[in-house]
């Protein structure tokens, strides 16, 4: 059950996408999103679809893994789709009572749903192909370039949060089992009794999180951690020719999406 959570999961591998510099990947992701929101017609979407499939193919990540990442968002996607399909005014092609489907709604809904699906696909591809460490490292460098204050601290917070997701899941399972051994029931009952049954789980979980945070802070201080001040890196990020190629491709991608608006 809890083990199915895949947020921030990294799948090791050697592929053109894996090997890119994390900074390249983050910046390209931003440009991809810009391109994705620029397209507004079927031909444009066809182009984006092919481009997305191409990237997924290059990353050697199986389609199953990506679909698994989309599944939790299915409700939001379906909601967006149906809202657009039923709520857009225009040429009516089917009507039943106050419900009506318009040609424009169908078109708009499909585009929106595709947009969401591609957005999730590419974002999860970023975490699937980049180690959390590289990801935050890249983010820190980009934030610094943008003169964001506390760039290092923000990145460090993200690293720690990502690092402790599996630990937290493990801990939750352990406490759940311990309370189940005392007859606790997390699965049946109404909404209220179910919410109440979470107290024996949440209180110990909070306590252990605070304790762990305290211990971690102490351990970091004991090793003279004092934020980003004068901090150097053992592994420096270096851009290679592949990264420049990626920038060129994403530049072309954005150009084509702009052009597609005039088709």
């Amino acid at each position: 059950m809890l083990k199915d959570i895949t947020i921030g999961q990294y799948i090791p591998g050697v592929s053109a996408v894996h090997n890119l510099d994390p900074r390249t990947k983050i910046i390209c992701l931003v440009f991809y999103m810009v391109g994705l929101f620029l397209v507004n017609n079927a031909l444009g979407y066809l182009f984006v679809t092919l481009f997305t499939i191409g990237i997924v193919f290059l990353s050697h990540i199986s389609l199953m893994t990506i679909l698994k990442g989309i599944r939790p968002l299915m409700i939001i996607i379906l909601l967006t789709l149906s809202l657009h399909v039923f709520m857009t005014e225009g040429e009516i092609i089917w009507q039943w009572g106050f419900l009506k489907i318009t040609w424009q709604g169908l078109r708009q809904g499909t585009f929106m749903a595709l947009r969401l699906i591609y957005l999730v696909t590419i974002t999860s591809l970023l975490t699937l192909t980049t180690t959390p460490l590289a990801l935050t490292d890249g983010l820190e460098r980009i934030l610094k370039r943008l003169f964001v204050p506390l760039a290092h601290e923000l990145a460090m917070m993200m690293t720690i949060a990502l690092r402790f997701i599996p630990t937290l899941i493990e801990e939750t399972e352990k406490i759940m089992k311990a309370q189940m051994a005392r007859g606790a029931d997390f699965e049946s009952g109404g909404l209220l009794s179910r919410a109440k049954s979470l107290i024996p789980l949440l209180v110990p979980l909070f306590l252990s999180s605070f304790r762990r945070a305290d211990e971690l802070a102490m351990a970091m201080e004991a090793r003279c951690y004092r934020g980003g001040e004068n901090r150097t890196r053992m592994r420096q990020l270096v851009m290679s020719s592949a990264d420049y190629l990626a920038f060129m491709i994403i530049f072309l991608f954005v150009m084509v999406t702009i052009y597609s608006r005039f088709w």
Partner: protein
Amino acid sequence: MPIILENVAHLYQPGSSYEVKALQEINLVIKEGEFVGLIGHTGSGKSTLVQHLNGLLKPTKGKVIVDDCQISAKKVNLKEIRKKVGLVFQYPEHQLFEETVFEDIAFGPKNLGLPPEQIEKRVKKALEMVHLDYEKYQAASPFLLSGGEKRRVAIAGVLAMEPKYLILDEPTAGLDPRGRDEILEQIKELHQQGMTVVLVSHSMDDVARLTQRLVVMHRNTIVFDEETRKVFSHYESLQEMGLDIPTVTKLMFRLKGKGWLVRQDVLTVEEAKKEILQVLKEARNHA
């Protein structure tokens, strides 16, 4: 009626690329009134095995039968089984959550749907079993107690379910020697009062002192299941598994190695003293 495990195997995340064999070919019978030790290296499958005994985990293969009731059967009442088989996890104090000791211990009996007067009776009894004074502790916050006290309150929380079988997973981990001795002494008393106890540990000294039967696990399966005294005669294979034998037993092995004719199946300091004196006396008589 006993707990029976028949050819039990357990896989974590079967079918995926992360599949891990946690248990295989486990055959085990725990009879009523026994005091069984379960010992093995970290990762040998002890904790996984123990969670099968009250249905927290279900076997991927094989059968677990508690008092004639098969756990993996469809219409099994798991609450009933968890009432019968009390399981104290490692670091049980991490499960405390209520504002007072009373409320926390009452959590189990409340889940069983007992009336208030019965609950109070059980809480009193459970606190008594772990030698904590009811009047002094019942209104205290469990979070302000000392480590040893916290653990005893947590154990009382399981005892209040009045289980027939009590399983303890490393109940002494992280306690100071005095806290450890107290907990072990109380567990021994519980057994003398008629409870069936399974003690999971990796301290040979602890299990040697208390248990009658010892089950040794290695690489996800049971390698020895014998009378405690006999298990330690497999000194060499135990060492190969990275397990030690009790300090006194080791001493006897060393003495034997130096040519003394002592028995080696000795478990306590008292026994060792007697044996050594005996041998010394014989030696003097010969001379």
